[in-house]
């Protein structure tokens, strides 16, 4: 126990925690959306995120930037960010939709039990990450089952410093964009016509279908939205860590799912709260007990919370969030 360390590094641990938490939150949105509508843990969502990181990395490589090149000039940084974002979002969305089409839709048609969905999701997840792990050198991304290094798009530098509390440019970018994405998504779900369809199906699929909501299209839309969020998270991950791996999605996916459950699965704002909270708690724990206990703490928090508040901090349900 290192209380002095915790107190000394408290500001830094908080900002790092918020930064990581923001990425968890964006991925958690994908879990929460799909769970809210389909009552299904989209186990393959972690791979949707992973494909996003790899796609952005590949795009940067095609543009001639690898791990040894340095980036100078705000114009080029913006260009790289936008290109990476576009690639990550497109790749993640396509992956999410493909998973829906191949792994989930046939089962829905056959009225399969919930366990079957989880098993196909695991299958899809394994196919995706093994494919990336095995064929990455053929694709020119990196060696077989090795970490992929990439260009460090934004050099991390301190922007604001308030009484020893340093906030870097990447941290600001990550946290602000995550909150921005969430606000946009929240508005979309709560204010638009398509969003109303999503809420309707989440509340009661059969009645929604009777009222003329196209259920299959809503489900597709949910996967698209989840894919977009995961793509954005993938870009932010690349900017922060400048590294990816074929199984990078696993731990992030597990954390993000924990975050979704923490906040109350099916609840969009809960995903943000849960994500940020998990990130911060983890970092405090690593300050207190040492870095090797960071991942451990996340699971402990999840299990303890599930024991005392099984519906999460803000409660479940996409439909009832603003009925």
């Amino acid at each position, binding site marked *: 126990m290192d209380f002095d360390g915790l107190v000394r590094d408290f500001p830094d641990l908080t900002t790092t925690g918020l930064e990581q938490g923001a990425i968890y939150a964006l991925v958690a949105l994908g879990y929460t959306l799909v769970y809210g509508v389909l009552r299904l843990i989209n186990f393959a969502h972690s791979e949707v995120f992973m494909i996003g990181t790899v796609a952005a990395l590949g795009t940067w490589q095609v543009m001639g930037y690898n791990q040894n090149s340095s980036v100078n000039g705000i114009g080029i940084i913006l260009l790289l960010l936008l290109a990476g974002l576009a690639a990550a979002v497109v790749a993640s969305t396509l992956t999410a939709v493909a998973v829906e089409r191949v792994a989930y839709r046939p089962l829905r048609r056959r009225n*399969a039990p919930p*366990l079957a969905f989880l*098993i196909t999701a695991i299958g899809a997840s*394994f196919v995706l990450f*093994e494919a990336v792990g095995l064929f990455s050198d053929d694709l020119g991304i990196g060696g077989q089952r090795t970490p992929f290094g990439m260009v460090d798009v934004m050099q991390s530098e301190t922007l604001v410093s308030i009484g020893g509390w340093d906030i870097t440019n990447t941290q600001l970018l990550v946290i602000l964009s995550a909150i921005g994405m969430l606000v946009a998504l929240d508005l979309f779900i709560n204010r638009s016509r398509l969003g109303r369809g999503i809420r309707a199906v989440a509340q009661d699929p059969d009645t929604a279908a009777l009222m003329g909501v196209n259920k299959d299209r809503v489900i597709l839309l949910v996967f698209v939205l989840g894919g977009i969020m995961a793509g954005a998270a993938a870009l932010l991950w690349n900017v922060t860590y400048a590294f990816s791996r074929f199984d990078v999605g696993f731990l992030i996916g597990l954390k993000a799912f*924990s975050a979704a459950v923490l906040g109350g699965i099916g609840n969009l704002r809960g995903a943000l709260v849960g994500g940020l909270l998990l990130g911060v708690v983890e970092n405090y724990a690593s300050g207190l007990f040492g870095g090797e206990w960071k991942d*451990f703490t996340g*699971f402990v928090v999840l299990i303890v919370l599930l024991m005392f508040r099984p519906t999460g901090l803000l409660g479940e349900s996409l439909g009832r969030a603003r009925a």
Partner: protein
Amino acid sequence: MNAHVEKVRARGARMRQRWQNMPRQVRWIAIIALLVFLYLLPNRWFYINLWYFRTMESDMATVLFETSFFVLLAVGLNVVVGFAGLLDLGYFGFFAVGAYTVALLTSPESRFDIGWPWLLAVPAAVAVTMLSGVILGTPTLRLRGDYLAIVTLGFAEMIRLYAARNEGIANGQRGIPEIPHPVPDLKGSDGQSVFGVVDARPYYWLTLTIIIFVILGVRNLTRSRVGRAWVAIREDEDAAQIMGVPTFKYKLWAFAIGAAVGGLSGALFAGKQSFINSDSFQLTNSILVLAAVILGGAGNVYGAVIGAFITWYLPEWVRGIGGALGLEINVAEYRILIFGAVLIIMMIFRPQGILPSRRRAAEFADRRQEAAPTEASA
């Protein structure tokens, strides 16, 4: 297509019928012949004649040991997933707990250094894993099924991370060496210990014997009050609860029994390898066992056995065949990719598995029929 499926199904039923109509003596002889075959299998003079069945490139006895130990895991997981319908994604967590318990109790290199013999440590390992199953199950089994999947997954990762990073007890990445082999005093005709380093056969025989006992136990359980309660919970938990089945208690039982079998195989593994570290407990292994159970047919012990056999033995066998034909096929490398695809395809076209339990197959057919009208109207 549907008519064809019906025909195949009818053929399966007829086979079963024919088997059951055979005289009792014939069935016994068939079973004994199969057992004798299984026990003879790792002997070189025996399998050398089975050129189309044996593995070409890897040591047959070692492969058989690994397969048998994988089968034991599948039989244990089948209790949890197949009978009670609880999705446990972190089965290797229990395996790790069992292996580490044995290692800590027996190895002179462990922190405790109490040096129990292996045989004494095995019941302790089983008890500890069972307890850990109860501790993990008590809070989580009250939750919905899909949370259970994630919590068990998290549990397995926690165990692995703890083992990898804890220097005090688990020795971190260095692991725990010098775990004694089972029964070192049992000497063979050459004066060497029967359970040694080179020969994998005794371990295979030991595991095979344990599997037979576990299968007998599990079969009796499924035909008892407990087994009927499991089926009721799997089919409809709410209905079971209303009919007076204490669902939580029986779910916890299934979880604990599954955990105990997992711990037992962990103890066996530790006794054979005589060295463990956290790398032995990768998550992919948990998924492979699950894939084996689903592939073979969850809910049927023999289905689980066949699934595990296919999952472990087949890739080794194909590699050997490829080598004999002068091809470089490393199926083991692609195993997880292939099984991922197989899981999806199985769930879509044959969710009941290769050798399903009859009741479970009927459940799936039922659900499919319920879906049929909506499909027609859509």
